[in-house]
């Protein structure tokens, strides 16, 4: 096995930690996440669809190696949203927080709050992953240290109060 170059001043234990051990995932508490304000990313082309949905076209930069092999610098990717996704996307105006979007969505489509929260938050995560929205939060993190992951609730604790 070829070992990657590691600074000789790091002790062996640190080297092994860096190489093999997973770093803790950064998580945000639920109540803080609900106060985030999603904003639509600029520079995205929008086209109305006949079924009430929309098609969003964004330009994505290719990786360095692809460009070295002759691919173009940017390429287009189009995402189609149905009428429900359009409602959520249009609600990302930078001023309404996630909780408000969830409540308005539940009210408009006559579904319960827990189901609306599950559907909307999952969809917002998808939009963020595709680069179609960005999230703004009021409270910046106080330090650059990663937030420790939320401990998994033991299911046995849910059995008996």
């Amino acid at each position, binding site marked *: 096995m070829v070992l990657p170059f590691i600074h000789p001043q790091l002790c062996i234990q640190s080297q092994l930690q860096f190489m093999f051990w997973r770093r803790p995932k950064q998580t945000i508490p639920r109540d803080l996440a609900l106060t985030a304000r999603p904003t639509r990313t600029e520079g995205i082309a929008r086209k109305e669809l006949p079924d009430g949905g929309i098609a969003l076209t964004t330009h994505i930069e290719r990786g360095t190696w692809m460009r070295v092999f002759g691919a173009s610098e940017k390429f287009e990717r189009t995402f189609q949203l149905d009428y429900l996704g359009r409602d959520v996307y249009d609600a990302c105006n930078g001023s309404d927080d996630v909780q408000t979007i969830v409540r308005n969505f539940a009210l408009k489509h006559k579904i319960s709050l827990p189901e609306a929260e599950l559907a909307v938050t999952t969809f917002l995560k998808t939009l963020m992953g595709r680069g179609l929205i960005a999230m703004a939060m009021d409270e910046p993190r106080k330090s650059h240290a990663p937030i420790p992951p939320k401990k998994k609730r033991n299911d046995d604790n849910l059995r*008996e109060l």
Partner: protein
Amino acid sequence: MSSPHQRSITPSLQHSASVPHSPILSSAHSSALAWSGWQLEIPFEWRPLRIESGWMRGAMLVGTAETPLLQIKWWRPERKRFKAVPWIEARVKSVAAKGALVKYLKPQRDGFATLVSAVDNNLKKNRNRILWYAHAPAANLIVELVANAAAPDDALTLIHDTVVPSLAATGLDQPTRWAVYDVSFESPPQFTVAAIKMLAGDIALELFGRKRKSRLVLRQVYPSQLALTRRGIANWLESSHFKEHRKFRSSKKPAPWKLEKDGRALEGVLRRGQKRLPAPLGWCAPRESIAAALNDAALGRLLLAEYDAPKKHFDESLLQTALLAMNWAHTNSAGAASTPR
């Protein structure tokens, strides 16, 4: 449940374990939770977190997305001569610490003959709980409600002032009410639930009558506009969450059908036929079958119901009754009641 913020029972909580006063129930802030014959009003932000359901016994955990707040357990005694008070006393003795404060209260709602509360301050097991027991003889039902005393004060106040006094039960000779996540059904008397399927946007119950001779499936799919873009309304009738041995046979296609509900005309399809076992047993115990799918555009729901039974027990009106009773507890997600309960 161990709590990192354990505190002893405060005088306000001790007082709260006495007679709960009648609350001013605001339909704008509550939603109905009904299961297996009992019914509660809970704040509309609360939800069932875990359901271990059965007709004879079961358990449900209710709370917010962050923490469980209330546990509900129910039993249906099998003995004919069942005495509630000794059973409840034995139960309190087995689950609560010695010296638990027990009080006999006057039930606030119809259906329950006995209401007992107990405060369990178990320092050994690091547990502070408030327990309520209620017995409904007509429903043959005992319900246990457990609130964690370490929960926030406003949640405990809501449980004491609103939730517990709203506990009600329906008798065995009355339709059984089911309500969860703003979706509600009513099943006919003598029908017991055999299976439940709960998915986001799709909730279904499978019920059987006495000796499993008749079968009723109730289902709601929402939002209906999205559901109908995926599949036609007649195709929704063909899909089912519950497996069965008998297959549907009919010489006719589903026919258009209308039903008047709450002053609105719901449009959909109706399908009639027979259900038979696969060949060569098709002649053995066939069942008459009727199924309907309706689009409630005002609520954005697809209402589906299917009923089958042997010819001599077949009662077509059960299907219509079940469809008319769907969404009896509907509120919109802001909490305001849109239909009277």
